[in-house]
């Protein structure tokens, strides 16, 4: 019987090696897999590349992972936000590498990794400093930038419902990067608010089919902070 549920956080984190590229879902605090991020901290994995829209806030979660010097490089669209104090300190001191990627390009590079597309042309950032050093091409009179896929070794995501095949739903704006990152990693680990029986999710409303999910852990995490 296929059963992707794991019973402990240690099992959820199994095999995350030093040097891994870890995709972390969420947008702001909605859909952010807090328990899995804490699990990653607990696992001790270091020298990580983190891919996330933001670079953490306060001194917990992603910010704590950064503060513990576990992250060598962060790839994100909006590192500087309210409370991103840890990131800003590390960056100012040259203790973390930063790759800024426009939000849509970030999403598309992840989707491309999931879809077996190693590179694509995009109009985003053409003619700007974020295209410097990148291959460009004029197609039908417009300039485009060549962007590469962005595969992860591990994706940490937050779901709303999950069944034992790893079929997932999300809640409202919690789908965001979670559904995209689920496709893009070798190992995708989901924390889910609810566990449901196989067949309980409408086949038309499965947001992430189980083929993209490696492991699921039940974490009744409650609502995002208001």
């Amino acid at each position: 019987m296929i059963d992707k549920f794991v019973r402990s956080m240690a099992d959820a984190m199994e095999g995350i090696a030093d040097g891994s590229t870890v995709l972390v879902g969420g947008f702001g605090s909605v859909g952010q897999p807090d328990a899995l991020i804490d699990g990653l901290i607990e696992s001790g994995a270091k020298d990580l590349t983190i891919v996330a829209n933001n670079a953490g806030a306060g001194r917990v979660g992603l910010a704590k992972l950064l503060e513990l010097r576990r992250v060598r490089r962060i790839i994100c669209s909006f590192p500087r936000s309210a409370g991103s104090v840890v990131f800003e300190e590390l960056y100012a001191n040259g203790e973390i590498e930063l790759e800024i990627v426009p939000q849509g390009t970030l999403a598309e590079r992840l989707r491309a990794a999931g879809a077996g597309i190693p590179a694509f042309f995009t109009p985003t950032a053409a003619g700007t400093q974020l295209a410097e050093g990148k291959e460009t091409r004029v197609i039908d009179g417009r300039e485009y930038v060549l962007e590469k896929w962005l595969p992860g070794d591990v994706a940490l995501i937050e779901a709303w419902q999950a069944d034992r095949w790893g079929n997932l739903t999300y809640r409202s704006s919690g789908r965001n990067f979670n559904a995209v990152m689920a496709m893009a990693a070798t190992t995708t680990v989901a924390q889910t608010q609810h566990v449901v029986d196989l067949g309980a999710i409408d086949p038309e409303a499965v947001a992430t089919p189980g083929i993209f999910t490696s492991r699921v852990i039940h974490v009744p995490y409650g609502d995002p902070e208001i």
Partner: protein
Amino acid sequence: MSDTAAAFKALNRDEMANRLAQDIPEGWYVNLGIGAPTKVADFIPADREVVIHSENGILGMGPAPAKDQVDPWIINAGKQHVTLKPGGSYFDHATSFAMIRGGHIDLCVLGAYEVAENGDIANWATSATESAPAVGGAMDLAAGAKRIWVLMQHTTKQGEARLVESCSYPLTAAGVVKRIYTDLAVIDVTEEGFSVVEMIPGLTREELQARSGARLRFDRLNTAG
């Protein structure tokens, strides 16, 4: 530049947002940038259906909820709590930016530091060497939406022009801005450069030109209103 005894009263932020909102026709799909542009939603006439898009996977976004009605799962791109209208939908980030980059968004309203007379926009970083710049979805929106309108103060607090011949700040996208709504005027970006279509009452052409860093044309100025 100082304004002694100015005969005009610049629009405040609400009035600017209201002015822009009047020009959005029914049925458009609209993305409103973080900050001042977000306010535009509050001024779209109630009898006009406009569908608001948010980068983080929402179409059909409604206004902010009452404090005791907050659903913590529904936030906009600025991470403020919002609501979903009947007919709204949720989707993932790749689909959301497919809507943007694929030219399905009729209008995106952005704030800006500077707009150049060729339509270049600079709104994401104030210098090329800035520490930890943050771009978010600005470049995707600027490059992808069918039309970009900018909502910004006509000058900086220090009185420096934001309408310029060529941007001094790092570009967000080249040649994309179609129209600018400021506290002083409505200006189209045309093949011949900036073309003023509307000015606030009491302001003279000379005064507006003096507050602008590139030549303004007035041949399309609507003097009826």
